[in-house]
């Protein structure tokens, strides 16, 4: 009877969040917040890495800072939305640029939602639960 039992192959759980933020302290605050809520997350500090990791791990949400040291976050946003493999990924844009024109530009580039800095960890948690639960 032992032979009858098929070995159970546990697929790695899909990553909840990919966080792309270049300021180490802000990144630390976000990572701490999402971990406390029990979400799985990966982090990066550059746009180039964000694109590569998003394609490789296809996380459910990309939390993306727009002012990155190597490239404009809007470009990351556009490239991911253009690619059918990653176009369904929810992109939450996190930026210090909070003017109307910037928000319009971000939404036009394919961002799903906008969070302005300084952000509230409490509000971020609510948003993540709404999107992921």
């Amino acid at each position: 009877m032992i032979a009858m039992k098929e070995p159970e192959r546990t697929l790695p759980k899909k990553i909840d969040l990919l966080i792309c933020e270049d300021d180490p302290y802000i990144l630390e605050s976000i990572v701490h917040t999402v971990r406390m809520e029990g979400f799985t997350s990966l982090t990066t500090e550059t746009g180039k890495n964000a694109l590569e990791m998003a394609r490789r791990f296809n996380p459910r949400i990309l939390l993306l800072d727009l002012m990155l040291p190597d490239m404009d976050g809007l470009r990351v946003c556009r490239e991911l939305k253009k690619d059918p493999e990653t176009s369904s990924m929810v992109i939450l844009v996190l930026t210090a640029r909070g003017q109307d024109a910037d928000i319009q530009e971000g939404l036009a580039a394919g961002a799903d939602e906008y969070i302005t800095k300084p952000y509230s960890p409490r509000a971020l948690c609510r948003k993540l639960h709404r999107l992921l639960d």
Partner: protein
Amino acid sequence: MGLTGKFVIQIIWVVVAVGVIFTWLPIQEEREIREEGQINLGKALVNQFIQDTLQAHPEIAFLPDQEILTELIRRLASQDNIAYVILMDGSGRIKAQSGSVPEFPGDDLIPRQINEMVDEPLTTRDGKEFHEIFAPIIQTGQRGEGDTALDEIFGAVSPSIDRSEENTRIIRAGVDKDRIKASMQKSIRDKILLTAGIMIPALSLLVFIFIRNITRPLKEVAETVRSIARGNLARAEELTIDSHDEVGDLAEDVKVMANKLRVNREALEKLTMELEQKVQERTSELTEANRELAKANALLQELDKLKSEFLSTVSHELRTPLTSIKAFSEILLDDKGGDTDTQRRFLTIINNQTERLTRLIGDLLNLSRIESRKREWKKEGIDPIRIVEEAVRELSSLSKLKKISIETRQQAQIPVVFGSFDKLMEVVTNLLSNAMKFSPEGSGILISLFPGADTHGSKVTDGEKEKSALYVLLEVTDQGIGIPEESLESIFDRFYQVDPRKSKDMGGSGLGLAISKEIVDAHGGRIWVRSKAGEGSTFSFTIPSIHHPIATAHGAKDEGP
């Protein structure tokens, strides 16, 4: 119709009238002469007839022989200019007549007692005109004394001639006026032909030539004026009329007029050219002004863009520490900080980020003050060594902490610099603290001072001239991590950081070098860097000495070291 034609038409009437008068008058005269001639000839013939008749037939007046009479009359009537002949007695009875006799009005036949030849015009009933000659046939002058021949013939007649009407004989002969007229026809025709065919055309030709001689110069003047009207002013010079009359005067006036026109036209052309030139100059001035305006506008737009970019960057730089402070304080407030160590770490971050924010605000204010208050800086002659010593003293705690040795070297004679002590000290402190931040523990930093010839830091090595060099060159050399080549250009830009993470860890705002550059620029100097990644960096800057025109213009005095 031209002037010549008009003149010819006017004058030709006179010519024709003169021609007609000169033709008609001779014709009248000739007719009268001819008429008279014919009548005289008729009279002569009648007289001759009477003489001949009396000679041949002395008895004829009294003893008419019808046959002889008829024969005689026929002979007279056969003459060319005699139309008819009638022989009557004193009572008007016709004794004999030539073949055809016109019908006269009744009273014309009334007998007349005449003693000598008469003649008078006469018109028949049917309108024919004759000139009639009446002549009595009498033996005139032949009955004188001794006239025997007559006496023989008339014997008893002599003084007692029967003078009764019965025995009187009168002869009437008609000269045909119509025939005279007919004979005139040819002569009249010839004269009219002469007048109409030769005289009038010849006169007309003469008149035409005469008039043309008068009008030709007028025509020339008219053509010249027409040419002038079309703009060919030079044509006036070709006018060759030099007669001293009204036309000559007119030609002269035309020349004068053309000359005036030419002078006016030349003046006008000159004026137009000047005007065009002025318009062109103004246009180019305007174009130049427009270009400068466009340039100024572009510069303003560039400045505006820079300003909004700067504001955007400032906003980002301010929000970054704020974001950490806000996030960690909220986490701690919500009791989600985890264990005590983590909570402590979060509080430390909050504290550090608050300091970072404070520094950033301070630097920003500093930067904006340099721009607005650099004119208010108290500039004076300063010994550069004093600045270096003060800066080293201020950073002594940090250098001790990292065990960094600072060495100062200077050439024998360093001129006094002209500037603000506080600001220049800020530059040196900035460069020195940067050097310490990026230097490994236990390494050394070298501060060098040179007399400089220009803003690019060419050193003055001639001992005598060192003291009066125009610039002072100050260099800070470290043995730190160095700067990658691609960053050398941008390192003095605001918020530029070679490695943001490392710089922020070290409390840099990204404004220190930008502030230093502003200060050096405001003094009239220049700042630059030489470096190789991993081999350390040398930051250099120049400041004008009190010998520089900038300083002498401010009346600076050499204070001496």
